[in-house]
């Protein structure tokens, strides 16, 4: 608690130094200036290496304090080990904050008597223009909350292994913590994508940049863990796998921040190159050794209790789900590091850009999407042929029919068509699950269908929250499928001239340049017309920040569910000095952000406690999707729900 309190004081002191324009502190000078708005003075805290590490410690301290507080009088055998692991991680970051990358270094010069004299600058250098965007105030806290949050399941897994703590207790204890971390990581990744979309001005949201990849890696293994952990909970299987997945997720969080901070890989998002990477590499090596030794010494405790009864079962679908997520993770990691390895081996750096990652990951993503539909409808242990027919006939037929229709309508791009078919397939399976469950609840309660669906969800939040998350992922895939049909046009524009893109006609009404408080703005006023009727005005602009002599783009976006009209002011033509518009028409992008919001909402639902612990199914006999039990062993009149 004392550590947490002190870290709070340190963090808020740095924030105070920003607000009070203390230009005698080196970090404040480097990342702020007097004209910077209050909003971005908060974001300045994590905009540099030192401040972001302090922010990491701050978030970690909140997690550590919360976990230790929640379990202060419980699990006496386990918590000392957990506490030691958490303290170890916290100490590492505090060491960096205090001795390696302190954000409190002052500006000083040697005085006449040899002593250092502090001096104050009149103003700071200002915040990087790319960071002066609303998402930058919420994206890093989300992402960092994800990274730091995975420390809790890591500490519990390692603690349970060291203490040989019995059973699946550590998994029950950490499920919610893992979900919270995963939720933050998901939101962080998507907010980062939205920031890239709205700020970088290249018309896309994911460029497979090393830093973007670094945020995706722990998300992939974390997602794998959230699925495979169910096998341990239900069937006592995959204990070794789960422990290593948690270890791997935490190590990938550390690796991700190492890549961002060390300069090993080049990225527009990375911090300045520094020697801090050595500290992280050392820490990673230490974690690996500790985990490996703990595993070797205590591996007997991780023996599986059950075996797989059938290949067509929920267990095997989880195995394949984990396989695909892990293959994707390793492929992204090796692609990210390949330029470094190629330079070491051959002396010349070979770039691995977006085309490579797309070619590798699109097929994997589609397999994963297929498993998203199939997995939840397979029964534990064994799925009968009847059950397969009952659950998959309609979704398969419906999705193929939709595929045939859209193919006939002109969608011939293979991956997009396949993605759309799979999206319809998965969405149908989810809707059917809700329909079946809600029908049973409605038959008992007489409530409306929608109320029954809500009731159903609240009775088993984990199961139906999971379906909501899957539905969100489906929407994200729908959005991704649209990328194959992006269009763009660039044109030098005279005042009054027009540009046609898709169904939109852009008319340049005016172009001006005016000074603002912290920057000078060059702005286009563009009227968007559709079918020769005015639709709306867009104001793409470029901001020039005097303090750091850098420019930033403010993209103007008109977003609909069908497509995004994305307009960039691309500067003035060197030949004609006329402003240049670069307009993009990006189909279905809004579905990605919508899907992301639904994923977060679904995750929150899974964290809610179940409304009732017991639900008696007496009157209605509903053949459940994934429950083919023999009558002799089935719990005769009562199905327990709300197990967690």
């Amino acid at each position, binding site marked *: 608690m004392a550590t947490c309190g002190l870290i709070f004081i340190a963090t808020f002191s740095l924030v105070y130094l920003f607000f009070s324009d203390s230009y005698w502190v080196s970090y404040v000078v480097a990342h702020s200036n007097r004209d910077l708005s209050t909003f971005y003075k908060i974001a300045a805290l994590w905009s540099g290496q030192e401040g972001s590490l302090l922010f990491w410690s701050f978030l970690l301290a909140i997690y550590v304090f919360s976990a230790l507080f929640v379990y202060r009088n419980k699990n006496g055998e386990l918590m000392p080990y957990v506490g030691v692991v958490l303290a170890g991680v916290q100490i590492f970051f505090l060491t960096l904050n205090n001795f390696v990358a302190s954000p409190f270094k002052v500006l000083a010069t040697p005085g006449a008597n040899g002593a250092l004299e502090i001096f104050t600058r009149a103003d700071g250098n200002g915040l990087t223009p790319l960071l002066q965007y609303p998402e930058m105030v919420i994206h890093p806290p989300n992402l960092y909350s994800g990274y730091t949050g995975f420390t809790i399941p890591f500490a519990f897994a390692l603690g349970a292994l060291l203490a040989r703590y019995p059973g699946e207790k550590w998994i029950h204890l950490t499920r919610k913590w893992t979900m919270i971390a995963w939720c933050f990581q998901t939101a962080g990744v998507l907010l980062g994508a939205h920031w890239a979309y709205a700020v970088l001005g290249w018309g896309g949201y994911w460029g497979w940049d090393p830093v973007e990849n670094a945020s995706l890696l722990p998300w992939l293994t974390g997602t794998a863990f959230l699925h495979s952990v169910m096998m341990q909970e239900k069937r006592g299987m995959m204990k070794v796998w789960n422990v290593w997945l948690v270890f791997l997720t935490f190590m990938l969080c550390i690796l991700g921040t190492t890549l961002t901070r060390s300069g090993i890989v080049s990225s527009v998002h990375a911090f300045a190159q520094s020697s801090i990477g050595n500290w992280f590499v050392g820490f990673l090596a230490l974690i690996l050794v500790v985990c490996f030794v703990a595993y070797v010494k205590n591996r007997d405790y991780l023996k599986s209790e059950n075996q797989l009864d059938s290949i067509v079962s929920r267990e095997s679908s989880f195995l394949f789900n984990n*396989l695909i997520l892990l293959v994707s993770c390793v492929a992204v990691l090796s692609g990210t590091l390949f330029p470094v390895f190629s330079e070491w081996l051959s002396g010349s*750096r070979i*770039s691995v850009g977006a085309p*490579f990652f797309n070619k590798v990951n699109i097929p994997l993503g589609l397999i994963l999407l297929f498993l998203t539909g199939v997995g939840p409808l397979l029964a534990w242990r064994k799925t009968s042929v009847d059950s397969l027919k009952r659950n998959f006939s309609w979704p398969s037929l419906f999705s193929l029919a939709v595929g045939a229709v859209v193919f006939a309508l002109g969608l011939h791009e293979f991956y997009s068509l396949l993605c759309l078919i799979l999206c319809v397939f998965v969405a149908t399976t989810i809707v059917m699950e809700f329909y079946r469950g809600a029908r049973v609840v409605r038959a008992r309660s007489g409530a409306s269908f929608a109320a029954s669906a809500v009731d159903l969800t609240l009775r088993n939040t984990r199961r139906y929250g999971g379906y909501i998350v899957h539905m969100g992922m489906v929407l994200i895939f729908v959005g991704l499928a649209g990328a194959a049909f992006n269009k763009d046009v660039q044109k030098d524009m005279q005042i009054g001239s027009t540009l046609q893109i898709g169904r939109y006609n852009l008319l340049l009404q005016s172009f001006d340049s005016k000074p603002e408080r912290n920057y000078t703005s060059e702005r286009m006023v563009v009227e968007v017309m559709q079918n020769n009727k005015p639709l709306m005005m867009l104001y793409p602009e*470029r901001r020039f920040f005097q303090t750091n002599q850098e420019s930033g783009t403010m993209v103007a976006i008109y977003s609909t569910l069908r497509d995004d009209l994305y307009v960039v002011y691309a500067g003035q033509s060197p030949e004609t000095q006329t402003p240049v518009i670069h307009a993009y028409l990006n189909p279905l992008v809004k579905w990605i952000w919508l899907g992301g919001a639904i994923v977060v909402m679904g995750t929150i639902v899974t964290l809610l406690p179940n409304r009732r612990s017991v639900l008696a199914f007496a009157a209605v006999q509903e053949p459940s999707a994934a429950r083919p039990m023999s009558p002799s062993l089935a719990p005769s009149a009562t199905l327990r729900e709300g197990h967690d």
Partner: protein
Amino acid sequence: MTKMRRRKTLLFCIASVCTLALSVSVTAQDRAKQIGGKFMCMCSCNQVLTQCNHVGCTTSTAMLKELDQAVARGDSEDVITQAFVQEFGTKVYAEPPKSGLSLVAWVLPSVYLVGGTLLVVFIISRWRSRIHLETAAASGGHSGISAEELERARRRVARETED
């Protein structure tokens, strides 16, 4: 009438030439875009050349100009690629070429997938064979199930089959 016809023919020819010229220029633009998608921008933004839109990025502007000129000259894709690699080094590739050391980058994901699938199949088959052994062992022993065992089995089934 003949004059009219001549005029019409002339107009038709002009229109055809214009259309052809326009289509050639569109093709050249498309070709430049397609080839440009295979290079990285060298401004260290880590973006594909045709997608780099960094404010004031002189590097991408110069590279795109060079590309447009090469396409206008009618250079083949290989010639353009060689020229870019000569000028900027192998890091100009947006994706590794499928030869030499770079081939490893392409092969690795397939190796992971195949290796992982084999591992999963191996794990599943080992689990399955254990089950058969256990079933055989169980059928060799006494077949009576006590009430306590039955109750334990019921509880286990309930736990394992709930979602």
